[in-house]
């Protein structure tokens, strides 16, 4: 068991784009174990992406076993994940191990279909909705060098245009 150091904003490496995994070998299994340990060490943490620990391959873990109220697949290791379909949008609050002490409102797709390889290299496909879909989108963003900070929205923008007050 090894907990790795988490990169914290404004570390420029968080902007780096990660490369696809090509070898499903024992080094990959060892890394996934470390990544999982690091995620479990983060209080309330429900996902993590490899670049957050300075490893720039397309590997994320999504784990909602601690959130049984939300429909979810349990712990998932997603390798080279791709969102093939998405629909709906929903606003929700996000924070990040790499952005401590701040949370913000973010719009994400409500439903996604995701294809990815599991840790043995078998192709998989998942339908996700709600909170689990949000976590997957948040983690996959890390693989492309994006933080939730890049998607912050102003709540006012959802509202109706303001009435003109007479002078």
């Amino acid at each position, binding site marked *: 068991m090894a907990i790795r150091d988490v990169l914290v904003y404004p570390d420029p490496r968080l902007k780096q784009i990660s490369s696809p995994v090509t070898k499903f070998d024992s080094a990959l299994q060892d890394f996934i174990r470390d990544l999982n340990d690091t995620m479990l060490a983060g209080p309330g*943490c*429900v996902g993590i992406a490899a670049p957050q620990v300075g490893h720039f391959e397309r590997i994320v873990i999504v784990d909602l076993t601690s959130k049984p109220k939300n429909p979810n697949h349990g712990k998932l290791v997603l390798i080279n994940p791709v969102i093939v379909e998405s629909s709906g949008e929903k606003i929700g*609050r*996000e*924070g990040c191990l790499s952005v401590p002490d701040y*949370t913000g409102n973010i719009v994400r797709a409500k439903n996604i279909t995701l294809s990815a390889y599991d840790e043995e290299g078998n192709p998989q496909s998942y339908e996700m909705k709600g909170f689990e879909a949000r976590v997957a989108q948040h983690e996959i963003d890390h693989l492309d060098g994006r933080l939730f900070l890049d998607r912050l929205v102003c*709540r*006012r923008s959802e509202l*109706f*245009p303001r009435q003109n007050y007479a002078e």
Partner: protein
Amino acid sequence: MNPWYLLTLVGKDRPGIVAGVTSALYKEGANLGEASMVQLGGNFTIMVLAQYEGTTDELSKAILPVAKDFDLRLHVDPVLEPRHQASIPDVRITVYGADRAGIVAEVTTALAEAGLNILNLETDVGGAIYILIIEGTASQGIDALQKVLDNLAREKNLETRLSPIDTLIG
């Protein structure tokens, strides 16, 4: 560590207010914290936290010239809890209905009695619609708030929606 102050500036809106005020603060060596800067009914309102090495009077005096330039009223308060950690809201409530006097008072009074602590409230008027968006913490649980909202919807002819905020950490 320099003390924190809350500056309030209000006046008729015109271009350049934010740039003028924040540049003056920067020139005086102040470091800004969180701020709310918003146009309300033709006025522009600024509330901003700033860290500054001098006293309340010294900060007021330093910023007064730019406030005068833009015809803004200026008020400076010391901040009592400088290391205050912002609370994370766990509930979002949206209420809307036909515009009339009393909606905010009725809704927030009922919610306060059911344990809501408001962290952020924004309202808008869109034609004949009054809209209220509240984020806060539910000190007596979410069910207590839902019950109050159901009553308001029934008795006051308002549309209400409550969504728990489950903050993602990842």
